[in-house]
């Protein structure tokens, strides 16, 4: 067994009072491809950032070639040959492919840039990745998979000892992933150590030599790829007690309140069909990027879509979110800070924004607004130091409750709640689950999009799982298990054919 290139020894990491990694031991050896798998929020990205020098551990140490290595930043790690490719691209959009590949390490002849050599080299690199993009093309003009390839070319152009890739295949098609894997194998054969994360377990089986499974910030399983079947990986990733976080489940009535047939959202979703019953809490599962948010934004009118959407028996026009709201169909965004709330405005201004016309006759009735805020604070248990505080200064949990209150002020019959508890502590989570339940008991119908398996399983009696822009399958009652959801979400055992 070769000595590890890069290793973590009893590493822990805290953000404020919350510890997200607990005493992780991990090693990465030269000439291996190592897969790091786990659910969203298990600590994979944090662990990778510690390895790549982007974060420093709170406890324990990082070892490079057996020596304690305290990278003070990513530049130091890169100088030591440890290179990380992020999930979000790190490219300058207005520069060319060639300029990006050599950004900060430009080849010079005298005081001038050696464009010829850099172009030739970047062309060779891109061709090796089978991405036929001329080196002079601007990065803003190339496709997302091509951008990924530019990132990889950037890494390949250096002396790589350790390559860390955070979900490199999330934006690639199967064929593009094959090309990437070919280059990964080439690097491995040259003696580099490669670490990557993926939610696609079939890929893990195909490319990885060893696997480490993280759950809740701790390593729960580790071993050679031949010790793990895909099912065993899925089982290791899940398995958590979620007993009394959730109120008792409820099935909906028989009346179908919302029905979508053959809905396409260009670039994100193809041929999605689903139905929602009155008083039901319906779940939408799947991985980030599977098209869940885009499908719901398409249904409610925030994105262009084709196909038919029937709300309470009549067809709903596309692209008109105000019309959907008037007819009782609203969407609560996953992007609380970017799309949900005006952070520099007060609670009141945020609360009444969607239905301001109700308070303006034609001058805004501030007393009525204040009364609405009082009611929201009581109903949704929003805890604020003062009513004049700006929303940006509230905690995530209180922001989420305010966003719920704002959405419910529209008095909707159908609510889509996208990631209802993202970045929220466990106590507030439970409150929000209870609130969602109460809404369903009031006869409203609710769709919950969630990346957290326990949330889907705890809340929903029926779940659609999406994979790669399709509805991969529907699970009902006792079929709603973490195992089944993960299988469908990762593209194993798709029911698409049977369902259709």
């Amino acid at each position, binding site marked *: 067994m070769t000595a590890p290139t890069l290793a973590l020894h009893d590493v822990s990491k805290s953000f404020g009072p919350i510890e997200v990694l607990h005493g992780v031991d991990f090693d990465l050896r030269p000439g291996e491809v190592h897969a790091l798998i786990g659910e969203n929020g298990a600590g994979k990205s944090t662990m990778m950032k510690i390895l790549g020098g982007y974060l420093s551990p709170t406890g324990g140490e990082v070892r490079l070639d057996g020596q304690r290595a305290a990278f003070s930043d990513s530049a130091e790690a890169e100088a030591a040959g440890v290179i990380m490719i992020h999930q979000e691209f790190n490219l300058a959009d207005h520069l060319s492919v060639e300029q990006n590949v050599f950004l900060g390490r430009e080849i010079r002849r005298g005081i001038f840039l050696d464009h010829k050599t850099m172009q030739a080299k970047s062309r060779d690199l891109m061709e090796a990745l089978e991405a036929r993009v001329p080196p002079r093309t601007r990065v803003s003009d190339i496709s997302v998979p091509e951008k990924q390839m530019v990132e990889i070319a950037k890494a390949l152009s250096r002396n790589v000892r350790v390559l860390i890739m955070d979900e490199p295949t999330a934006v690639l098609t199967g064929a593009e992933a094959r090309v990437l894997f070919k280059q990964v194998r080439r690097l491995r054969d040259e003696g580099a150590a490669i670490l990557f994360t993926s939610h696609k377990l079939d890929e893990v089986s195909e490319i990885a030599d060893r696997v480490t499974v993280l759950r809740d910030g701790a390593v729960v399983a580790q071993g050679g790829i031949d010790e793990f079947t895909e099912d065993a990986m899925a089982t290791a990733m899940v398995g958590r007690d979620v007993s009394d976080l959730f109120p008792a489940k409820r099935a909906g009535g028989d009346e179908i309140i919302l029905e979508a047939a053959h809905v396409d959202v260009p670039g994100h979703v193809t041929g999605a069909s689903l139905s929602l019953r009155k008083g039901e809490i319906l779940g939408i599962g799947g991985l980030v990027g599977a098209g869940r948010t885009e499908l719901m934004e398409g249904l409610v009118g*925030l994105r262009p879509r084709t196909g038919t959407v029937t709300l309470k028996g009549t067809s709903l026009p596309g692209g008109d*979110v*105000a019309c*959907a*709201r008037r007819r009782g169909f*609203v*969407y609560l*965004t996953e*992007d609380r800070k*970017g*799309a*949900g*709330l*005006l*952070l*520099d*405005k007060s609670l009141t*201004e945020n609360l009444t*924004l*969607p239905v*301001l*016309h109700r*308070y*303006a006759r*034609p*001058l*805004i009735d501030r007393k009525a607004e204040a009364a609405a805020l009082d009611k929201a604070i009581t109903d949704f248990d929003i805890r604020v130091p003062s009513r004049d505080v*700006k929303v940006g200064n509230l905690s995530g949990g209180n922001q989420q409750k305010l966003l719920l209150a*704002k959405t419910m002020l*529209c008095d909707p019959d159908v609510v889509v709640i996208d990631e209802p508890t993202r970045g929220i502590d466990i106590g507030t989570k439970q409150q929000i689950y209870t609130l969602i339940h109460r809404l369903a008991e009031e006869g409203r119908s609710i769709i919950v999009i969630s990346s957290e398996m326990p949330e889907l399983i705890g809340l929903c009696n029926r779940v659609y799982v999406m994979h790669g822009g399709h509805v991969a399958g529907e699970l009902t009652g006792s079929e709603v298990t973490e195992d089944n959801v993960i299988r469908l979400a990762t593209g194993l055992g798709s029911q698409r054919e049977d369902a259709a």
Partner: protein
Amino acid sequence: MSTASTNAGARRGMKIDLHVLGPILALVALIGIGIALNSNFLSYGNITNVLARSAFIGIIAVGMTFVITAGGLDLSVGSMAAFIAGLMILCMNLLVPSMGQSLGVILIGIAVALAAGLVAGAINGLLVTRAGIEAFIVTLGTMGIYRSLVTWLADGGTLSLDYGMRELYRPVYYDGILGVSWPIIVFAIVAILGEIVMRHTAFGRHCAAIGSNETVARYSTVAVTRVKTLTYILLGCLVGVAVVMYVPRLGSASASTGLLWELEAIAAVIIGGTVLKGGFGRVWGTVVGVLILSLIGNILNLTDMVSPYLNGAIQGVIIILAVVLQRKGSTAT
């Protein structure tokens, strides 16, 4: 960055007060300086003169407050004013032979000015919202177009209103009620209505919401496109109103009519405390900003301590100071 915001946080109470009171204190100081330097400063004639001359920029600046609050910008208003003035004079001159020197001609002229303002504003607004071109670019383009059009209409010279018509129309600038001239009355009405619309109607709140975060506004089912377009239309109409008050003053329009009005209007809005990036606007602040700018010019004209040619330099310093103060205010919040 983090230390800076903590510091600012500790002094927040004072900062906010300064943010609100700053423009008023500056105005009071200017009035004090004016009184100290020239005994004529507070005379009826001087006050009326300052206010009436402020009215054109002031009426436009009220509209500009809405555009900027909603995250937009309009550089074309000065050229637009010149073009509308030229168009209005041309139309009136054309009608005199058939309709005579009558009130009807003036009413039609006013209607033409208001309609042209509405259309010009709608063009800016639709190019920004429907075609998705940046406001800066759109209005830089229309600014050049209108300036060129008025030069062309005047054939490089001056368009003058028919002499008889001028006599008939003059009172709209020079007369008034109870000693207050019409431009001042109209400016006051526009400002009061503007303040009410900004603070107390859904439209004003929607403007601030869009300027604060357009995505949030869209997700909150605010009719973003319609509101943004309306701000440009409102501004265009107010440019029309300003022209209606301006034409009787000189009775002519040329290539240099309304030159740099856009900058004065934008400066007044910013000095008044409206955030240039949008998200927060106040009309009363804009009115104070307009008065500050005109008082500086007036004081320089009344005294001989500083050359009136330095008027622009002093205004420039004030604008930059206002933005520096504004930025300190915004880090505190």
